[in-house]
């Protein structure tokens, strides 16, 4: 009898071991179960606004992150926190097991300021408008329930808010009240942040199209067909739209009619937004490189190998462009002579867009630290854990 019990225990142990091996196999993929988010810093009037990333509890396929995201306000001078507001109203995921419970309120798009309000959109499918001084909630959209996940950032202009949603629609809300003014449907998810230029809203979708809409009423002006989906945000510069896609192409498109001016094919995806300075466009790529193109002709002026993918948005500072790699190095490219220099090595993963304000470079890392550097001297002014 004892032998049989031992045999049974042995078989059950074997099953458990097999299960553990399976879980380790899943865990080793590095695949996240839940969105992490984490925005760049938005700076105004001596205050930095950002929404921190959600740290996962670790473990295997079933890691559970903190469900509640938040919006944090810190002093731009010292990094000391002024207020933080939890972003509630998480949508139940409707799943089971690991996926049970509420969808975490990860925020990907930088907070946006308009008049006295600061806006953020969450992966839980809600848009929040808060008083920028106190953090008091002014309104939330939708008031009841949740939309599909929002990865796109929110753009404020013409008394309106614009954002894309994973339901494939771009929405225009009244910036003061949060009432919906119009919506425009694309054929797939929108993760890209729209861009407004004049009275035209440009937005890119997973349906492989770039759209130009009348910002006033959402009517279509033109659309451009690419070979792959768009996850990056367009740059409008001198009447041309520059945007990279998941087909590995970087496109220059005439902003007036949507015709293609030129394209460049890289080795991997373009995920980040481009920047432009004096006729040269700079864009980072997942092939570890930053490319510089003549904005008019598309001729490649230079390329810089940073040995790590570039996901974070770059920023311009006078005659330099700051670029961060995923592995945590920040480089400067001198745009006068196209010289690359290492600005800082943080050793912390960087996904969030870089920000620059009043000569200070702000970098938020996935280790939940906000770093502030003097952009000219490279001296670190402060760093503050924001979690």
């Amino acid at each position, binding site marked *: *009898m004892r032998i*049989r019990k031992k*045999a*049974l225990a042995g*078989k*059950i142990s074997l*099953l458990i071991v097999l*299960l553990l091996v*399976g879980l380790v*196999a*899943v865990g*080793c*993929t*590095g*695949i*996240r179960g*839940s*969105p*992490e988010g984490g925005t760049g810093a938005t700076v105004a009037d001596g205050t930095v606004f950002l929404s921190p990333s959600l740290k996962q509890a670790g473990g295997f*396929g*079933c890691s559970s992150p903190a469900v509640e995201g938040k919006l944090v306000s810190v002093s731009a001078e010292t990094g000391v926190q002024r207020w933080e507001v939890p972003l509630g109203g998480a949508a139940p*995921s*409707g*799943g*089971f*097991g*690991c*996926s049970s419970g509420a969808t975490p309120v990860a925020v*990907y798009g930088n907070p946006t300021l308009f008049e006295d309000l600061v806006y953020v959109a969450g*992966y839980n499918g809600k848009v929040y408008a808060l008083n920028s001084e106190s953090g008091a909630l002014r309104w939330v959209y939708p008031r009841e329930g949740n939309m599909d996940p929002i*990865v796109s950032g929110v753009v404020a202009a013409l008394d309106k808010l614009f954002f894309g949603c994973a339901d494939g629609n771009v929405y225009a809300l009244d910036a003061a009240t949060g009432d919906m003014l119009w919506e425009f449907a694309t054929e797939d*998810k929108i*993760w890209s942040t729209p861009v407004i230029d004049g009275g035209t809203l440009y937005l890119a979708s*997973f349906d*492989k199209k770039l759209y130009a809409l009348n910002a006033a009423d959402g009517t279509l002006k033109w659309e451009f067909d690419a*070979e*792959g*989906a768009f*996850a990056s945000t367009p740059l409008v510069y001198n009447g041309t739209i520059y945007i990279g896609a*998941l*087909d*590995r192409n970087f496109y220059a498109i005439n902003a007036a009619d949507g015709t293609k001016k030129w394209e460049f094919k890289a*080795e*991997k*995806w373009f*995920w980040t937004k481009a920047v432009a300075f004096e006729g040269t466009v700079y864009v980072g790529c*997942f092939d570890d490189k930053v490319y510089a193109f003549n904005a008019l002709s598309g001729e490649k002026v230079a390329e810089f190998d940073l040995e790590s*993918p570039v*996901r974070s948005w770059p920023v311009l500072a006078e005659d330099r462009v700051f670029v961060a790699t995923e592995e945590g190095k920040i480089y400067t490219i001198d745009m006068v002579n196209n010289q690359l220099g290492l600005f800082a090595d943080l050793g912390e993963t960087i*996904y969030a867009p870089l920000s620059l304000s009043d000569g200070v470079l702000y970098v938020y890392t996935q280790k939940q630290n906000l770093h502030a550097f003097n952009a000219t001297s490279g001296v670190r002014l402060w760093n503050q854990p924001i979690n």
Partner: protein
Amino acid sequence: MDIGGIWNLIAMQPVINTLVVLTHFLFNNFGLAIIALTLIVNGAMFPLTLKQIRASKAMQEMQPKIAELKKKYAKDKEKMAREQMKLYKESGVSPAGCLLPMLIQMPIWIALFQSIMRVLAVIPENLAGLSQYLYSWPVVYSALPLNNHFLWLNLATGDIFLALLVGGTMWVQQKMVMAPTIDPSQKTQSSLMLWIMPIMFAWLTLSFPSGLAIFWVTSNLFRIGLQYWIGGWGGLVKSSPKRDNGRDKKYKQRIASVEKASTGDADIVPSSAQEEDLSYEESGDKRPDSGGGSPKSPRDTKPKSRRGGSHRRKRG
């Protein structure tokens, strides 16, 4: 290059890119691509799987003899091991024959499993990470990101119906290979094992994306078909006669020849005792029957004679 890099190069990248290409050619339907790739991989590993099933079956048929050896040499472990190895050798059955194919297949299954998880890439972090695994084939870049909808399913989330299907098909598959027994304690043990795995996988299915569940269901159905081809419905249907595939003869003939050679030595119970008798041998319980002649080969043994008892043996 570290181990992770090598693994990505030889396992993850080929599987991920194949999945994406299949999706492109199967009407941009990721569900169909998972089914197709599972069948392709199962088909490619068919010889190994077949070998594993046959070796397991042969091992199962030898269990009465091994049990007898264990009983006889209970006090002399070394001798028992020697005799056991001798028996394996003479019968042409290798214990590694069960394990080796399984070990070879395991990395392939893990790669398939991990790839499905990665290609599903619903959240931005995962989609961005997928980029590092892609070949520079235009078709791959134009197909991504994939549509996660298949039938009524969102392939990225769990589904209760698929969980039941995974559990059900796994139960059927287990039941087919299970050796029937009338020993109550053995029966309890067997039925416990029969239920644990399906329940565990059904629970896991609820927790993981249903794309994985499609992979499990397809694999289970393939294995059920294979088991049926080799051994009929097996333990699933009580009265079902076992299908005897021609290739099984290799093992059976060898086992039978060992039996023949050992007729003078009644220490070893003939293989015709088969699985039903295993419980008695292991438990040491007294069989409800005794006496009778031993058949010449396993195929000569009729179900009645198995239970009715026609074996003569000397208890150690």
